[in-house]
C-alpha cells in the first residue's frame, strides 16, 4: 500500500499533475505520524500510511493556507472520512474539484488513543467514527490505493459517543448543565478545535470580532460556554464527525458528543448527512416549506 502510494505521488509530481502532495510521514522516533508536504518527486519516499494516520489533512485545502495553495495544484492523501470534509468544502464552494487531486486510501480504522497502540488495530483503540464508517472505501477520489475493505456499519450507530449522547438525553436539564459546565470550565481558549477543523475556514472568526465583542475571550465559564455553543452551531449540518476537534483538544472536552448530537438532529430533521454528495446543498443553505415546526408555538 505504501509502495503504491509513494509511486503514485512520485508520478504525479514528475508529470506535474500536482505541485504538492499533502500526506503523512513519521516523526523522528517513528512513534507518531505527522503531515508532510512533498514537492519533489524524490521525497515521495517519505510518505507513509497506517492506522496512526489520524489527521484530517483537508484542513490544508482551505483558504487559511495561501502558502500551501501557492505550491500549485494540491494532491491530497485522504481516507474516506477526510474525503467527506473535502466534499463539504466543494459543496460550500471553497474548492473546485479540478483544483485538487484526491489520492483516496482504503482504511480499516485509525487509532484514537495512540499511547495504546501496539502495532495492531483493535476495536477498543479505535474511535467511534471508525466503528460506524461507511466510507472505508473512498467515495470520491481520483485514484484509490489499497485493497477494498468489506465492512458493513451497524444499523444503529454504536460506540461510546452514541452511548454518551443517549445518557445525556436521559438526564434532567440541570444535570446536563452541570455535565457541560464541568467540561467547558476546563476550556483554555486555545482554539485548537477551530484550527484543526477544515470546515472552520472563516478568515475572521466570530470570536475574534471585538467591535463589538460577541464572544468573551476570557477563559471563564461564561465565555467558554458561548464559544463552545457557537462553534457547535456554526458546524450544524456541516460537521462530518471526523473527530479532529476532540482529538486536538488539549483538555479533553468531549466535543464529538456535541457535534454528533447536532449531526443526528440534521439527519432526523432534514434527512441530511454531510460529506457524501457535493451536488446536494447543505441543509442551512436551503429550506423546505414543509420543515417541521412542532416547537414553534
Amino acid at each position, binding site marked *: 500500500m505504501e509502495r503504491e502510494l509513494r509511486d503514485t505521488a512520485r508520478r504525479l509530481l514528475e508529470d506535474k499533475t500536482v505541485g504538492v502532495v499533502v500526506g503523512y510521514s513519521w516523526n523522528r522516533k517513528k512513534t507518531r505520524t505527522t503531515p508532510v508536504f512533498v514537492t519533489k518527486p524524490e521525497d515521495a519516499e517519505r510518505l507513509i500510511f497506517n492506522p496512526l494516520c489520524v489527521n484530517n489533512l483537508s484542513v490544508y485545502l482551505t483558504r487559511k493556507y495561501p502558502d500551501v495553495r501557492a505550491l500549485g495544484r494540491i494532491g491530497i492523501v485522504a481516507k474516506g472520512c477526510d474525503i467527506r470534509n473535502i466534499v463539504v468544502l466543494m459543496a460550500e464552494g471553497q474548492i473546485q474539484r479540478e483544483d485538487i487531486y484526491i489520492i483516496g486510501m482504503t482504511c480499516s480504522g485509525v487509532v484514537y488513543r495512540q499511547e495504546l497502540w501496539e502495532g495492531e488495530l483493535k476495536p477498543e483503540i479505535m474511535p467511534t467514527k471508525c466503528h460506524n464508517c461507511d466510507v472505508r472505501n473512498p467515495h470520491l477520489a481520483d485514484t484509490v490505493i489499497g485493497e477494498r475493505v468489506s465492512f458493513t456499519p451497524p444499523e444503529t450507530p454504536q460506540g461510546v459517543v452514541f452511548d454518551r449522547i443517549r445518557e445525556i438525553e436521559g438526564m434532567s436539564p440541570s444535570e446536563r448543565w452541570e455535565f457541560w459546565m464541568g467540561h467547558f470550565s476546563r476550556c483554555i481558549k486555545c*482554539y485548537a478545535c477551530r484550527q484543526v477543523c477544515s470546515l472552520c475556514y472563516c478568515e475572521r472568526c466570530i470570536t475574534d470580532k471585538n467591535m463589538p465583542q460577541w464572544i468573551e475571550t476570557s*477563559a471563564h465559564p461564561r465565555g467558554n460556554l458561548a464559544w463552545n455553543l457557537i462553534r457547535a452551531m456554526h458546524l450544524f449540518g456541516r460537521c462530518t464527525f471526523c473527530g*479532529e476537534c476532540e482529538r486536538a483538544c488539549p483538555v479533553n472536552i468531549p466535543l464529538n458528543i456535541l457535534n454528533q448530537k447536532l449531526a443526528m438532529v440534521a439527519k432526523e430533521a432534514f434527512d441530511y448527512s454531510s460529506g457524501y454528495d457535493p451536488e446536494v446543498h447543505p441543509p442551512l443553505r436551503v429550506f423546505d416549506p414543509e420543515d417541521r415546526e412542532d416547537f414553534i408555538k
Partner: protein
Amino acid sequence: MILRRDNIKRLVELVTSTGGVFVAPVVDTRQVVYRAIGSGEEIELNYILPRNSFKEFLFPQTEVIARFSMNKGGVDLENMDITPPDTVIFGARPCDTASLPSMRAVFTWDYIDEFYTRREERITVISIGCTQGDDDCFCTTVGLSPESRKGADIYLLETEQGDFVVESVTDRGRDFIQRYEEVFEQRGDVKTKALFMPERIDGIDVERIKGWLSKKENYQSPLWAELARKCIGCGACTFTCPTCHCFDIMDEAGLLEGERRKNWDSCQFDFFTLHASGHNPRDTQFKRWRNRFMCKFNFYPNKFSSRGCVGCGRCIRVCPVRLDITEVMEGISKEQ
C-alpha cells in the same frame, strides 16, 4: 530530612488551614493537572508531567485588572489591587521550576508587573526529581536535567519506599521547612529511586541554533516553510508552555459596567499581529511559528540571559499535527 508520603496530607492541612493555597498534581478527565486542592487525598504522585504548567498560579489565564461603570457624571474606575495568599506549588517538575526565572525576567523587565511579582513573592515551589518520563521529554538537550534545582525552593527525591528526601534550596525553602517542621523527619538510612534521564538528542546544538537565528538573512530562509508549514495555528503549545507569557488586554462590558481583563494570548493566532489597516506582517502560519521559535531560542536568551525553552515537551504532546520542536531544532542545527 525526610517527608513521609503519609505526611503530605498533614502538610496540605497545615497550609490550607492558615489560609494558604496548596497546588499539587491531581487527575482530571484522564489527565494529570496542577490544581489548588482542599485535601491531600486528591494528590496524584504517579505522573510524568501535568498537562498545564503552573504558570497559571502566577499569571492567571484571565485576570481582572480594572472595573468600570457608567454613572450620570461620567465613568467610575476601580483599579484592582491584589493581595495573593501564600501559595505552595507541590510536585513541580524541574523543567517547570526552571521556567520561573524566565517568567520573572519578562514581568520585571521595563515595567514591574505587580500582578505577577506579588504572587511570586508569596510562592513556595517544591519540586520532585523525575523518576519517569516519556519520548517527548528533552530537558537534557537544552541544558537542564531532572536534577536541576533552578527556580525551586525545596527539591525532593523519591525514595524506594515512596517517601521523599528533602533538600532546601533557597531561604524561602528553609523558612518553609522550619514553619512546618512537624511534618518533616530527620533522615534515616534511605535509598532514592533512580532519576529518569531523557536521552540527549545528538543532532541538536542550542548555541548553534542561536547563532543561525541571529543572522538576519536566515529570517527569510525557505527552511521555515519547510519545517513549519504544517502548523495549523492553534494556541495549544503556547498555552501549555511554561515560559510563554504573552497576554492581551480586553474590555469586556455590558451596557453600564464592565471589566478590563488581562487574558493569555498566543503568537500562533493570525489575529496576534493583524494591523488595523488590515495588513498582517506574519501573513502565513509558518511565519507565526517562526516567531515562537525565535522567541525561545534567540530573542529570549539574547535579551534576558535566561532560557526560553526548558525542554518539558508539552508543545510536542499537545500538538494536533505533531509539529515536534526538537525536529526543527535538529533541522536548524544542521544548517551552517
